[in-house]
């Protein structure tokens, strides 16, 4: 009489089994993603060789055929896929059709800045979200609540490029206190790196924080009315501590899922931010490669990002299990009834 909505059997080694199963599922999923990307790319109209040669000038079909053969595009699709995957497994990510640089080094060069930007953006978003959603509750300020509401609306309504340019116009063009571009590697000059990071990270952070705040405020309101919060208040814990220690952790849990999913959105948002701030990141690498149909670059880069996404979500799921004890101990009454 399994509880029909529950997973399979729990037990002592359930956690390890669960992790293993999730890992297995993730691998399967990555294979799916790789096939999906591969197919999706080949469904796109347009052809890397035509783009490379530039159709505006007329194309010699023989030359094009030669080029296609060189790039392996004349092979049957399954063969191409096989070549790519075997290459991947042996650590060869392929070679850009255009610059001839190998994809590994292209990614290597742009992964750092992307990580910087996304991490900073996500951190900032989380910080903004937590502070802005908690503050009105802690201070019981209706006004602050309204301001945060306005901020959320603005954050959801205005596309990132608008924020980007407004920031640049104020801090860079008008006040001249922050550089709008020219990414400096962290290893070279951390301080300068931080200075250029501020505005793009802020732009990304604002855009990402808005939906997070919405989730958080909704679940905060829900948790605030719960019995156990009343217990905490009844213990004489100061309001601030009640919110931080009792309301927030419970409210953060559902928001965590949405944060995991946000990782995907980070990239979409990051592309535009990267464009506006000329940030040498993977987002623009992907979009540029899509425009050129540089399959070699896109497929490996997207797969890499998909792997990151899968990993992050795996971690989020596991974290969820750790943070929510009701899930951690498989075998609670409702879980075990499998």
């Amino acid at each position, binding site marked *: 009489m399994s509880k029909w909505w529950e997973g399979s059997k729990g037990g002592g080694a359930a956690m390890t089994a669960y992790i293993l199963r999730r890992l297995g599922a993730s691998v399967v999923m990555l294979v799916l993603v790789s096939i999906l990307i591969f197919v999706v790319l080949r469904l796109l109209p347009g052809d890397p060789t035509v783009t490379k040669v530039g159709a505006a000038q007329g194309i010699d079909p023989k030359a094009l055929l030669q080029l296609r053969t060189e790039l392996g595009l004349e092979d049957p699709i399954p063969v191409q896929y096989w070549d790519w995957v075997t290459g991947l497994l042996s650590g060869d990510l392929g070679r850009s059709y255009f610059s001839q640089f190998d994809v590994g080094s292209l990614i290597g060069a*742009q992964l750092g800045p992307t990580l910087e930007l996304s991490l900073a953006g996500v951190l900032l978003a989380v910080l903004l979200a937590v502070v802005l959603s908690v503050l009105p509750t802690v201070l019981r300020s209706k006004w602050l609540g309204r301001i945060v509401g306005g901020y959320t609306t603005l954050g959801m309504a205005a596309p990132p490029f608008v924020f980007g340019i407004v920031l640049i116009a104020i801090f860079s063009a008008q006040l001249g206190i922050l550089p709008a571009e020219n990414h400096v590697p962290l290893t070279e000059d951390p301080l300068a790196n931080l200075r250029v990071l501020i505005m793009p990270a802020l732009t990304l952070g604002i855009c990402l924080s808005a939906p997070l705040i919405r989730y958080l405020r909704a679940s905060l309101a829900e948790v605030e009315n719960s019995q156990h919060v009343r217990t905490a208040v009844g213990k004489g814990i100061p309001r601030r501590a009640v919110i931080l220690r009792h309301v927030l952790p419970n409210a953060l849990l559902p928001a965590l899922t949405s944060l995991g999913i946000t990782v995907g959105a980070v990239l979409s948002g990051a592309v535009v931010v990267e464009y506006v701030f000329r940030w040498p990141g993977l987002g623009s690498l992907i979009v540029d490669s899509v425009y050129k149909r540089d399959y070699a670059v896109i497929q490996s880069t997207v797969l890499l990002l998909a792997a990151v996404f899968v990993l992050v979500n795996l971690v989020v799921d596991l974290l969820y299990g750790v943070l929510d004890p009701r899930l951690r101990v498989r075998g609670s009454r409702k879980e075990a009834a499998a």
Partner: protein
Amino acid sequence: NGGGGEPDVQATADSGSGPVREGGVLVFGQTDGVTQLDPNKISSAAATQLQTLLWNGLSKWGPDNLAKPDLAESWQSSPDFKQWTFRLRQGVKYHNGKAFTAAEAKKNFDTVLQPNSTAQVKAKISMVSAVTAKDDTTLVIDLKTPNPELPIDVIDVKMSDIDDIANVNRNANGTGPYKLKSFVPDQTVELVRNDTYFGKRAPLDGITITRYADSTAAQTALRSGQLHVLANVTPDVVKGLAADGRQLLTAAEPAAYTVWELDTSSPPFDNPKARLALSHAANRQAMMDAGYAGYGVPTPANVVVNPKNKHFDQALPAHEFNLDRAKQLFAEAGVPEGSTLTFWAKAGSNTEWLTIGQILQEDLRKIGITLDIQSNENSTWSAKFYPKGKKFPGMLAANYLSFTPLPDSYALAWFEGKQGTCECNWVPPKEYDDAVAAIEASGEGPQRDAAFRTAQQVLNRENPIIVVGSTAFLSVAQGNLRGAWVQAEGTLHLEEAGFAA
């Protein structure tokens, strides 16, 4: 307020002369990225900027649209223009230290001429039958058919170390005044001065060519002074941008054209009347005003010759903007009210195509014809036209063509019928083919002029494409830029540029 009519800011073809200070790094911005550095595989306008900085050809452009000595100190031809001998400079070295010799030049020519080469310049020198290195400094080029303009046509054969071409994206392998410091595809190309350059020492310490995918961000950078030159600015924003002491640079006599290509082999545009109708439906003046902020020259004669060019046939009848006429002609050609035509445009770049497309759309609407505008990103746009010979019924494809404003160049690029850039499937009358042959074979003189006039008349009558106007790239530079100049087809020459002292 408003705009249109006369341009608001006067444009120049060269940034002021005057004392230049040594040093400084010039930041050059453009909306498209450089994807690779093999000079003989350059296909996008974004990379042509580098051609004069990293590499040299046997000859190079002068501001007068003539070939000037570059790696070749001099050249001469046989009287029948079928054999050319180039005398090369001595002691020139590639950036990697290897000596440049006639044998090296031959390697480059051979690479371009290989059957499966995709070099764009290949079309220009397709009449070459053999390239021979007589000795280290003598290069002989034999032709199948006469070419009086070979020194011009070889300009774009840029010399690079073919033996090390695999590493071209790491070292560029050129001989030019600047050498490569770093290259991130689609992002930046950093150049530093080549201290062992054979020619005039470059004033700048370096040039950074960088990409602004977001045009507003680019404008901001230019306004804040972070950027020194912004190439290919959207005409709309030129007025505001070229203020505050900044200068607007563009070709003196633009030899680039905004055109709509038509499929002349399928209905309705297989009917010359339909093509003429379209030409009459195009409000060229409004299009130049709105789309090009007045910097374009309308071409009502519908030929790819700038009306200001001395070779332009002033007697050609103009296809004036006349919707009634257009409506009538369309009706006669089987395009009644209620028909739909397609406008194939590019997304993301060349936004002015869309602007002029909308003007046409609105005008056609007035005569009951729907123009369905379809924007496509670059690859889809290109793929549409490959392979050649496809049918495009009822479609107008916006495109941009640039030539050297010389008769044979016009002819070569367009009207040969067999090979060229036209997606129009046009089969020219014999009269036209003869004229083209005459232009190619003869040097300057009355014979060539007459043939050129004939060719223009055929185009004006047959309208294989619609030429909306003669337009040019607009670039905006900071006021202190010196020594840069714009070539007729749009390339900005920075090899001698520097900052005002």
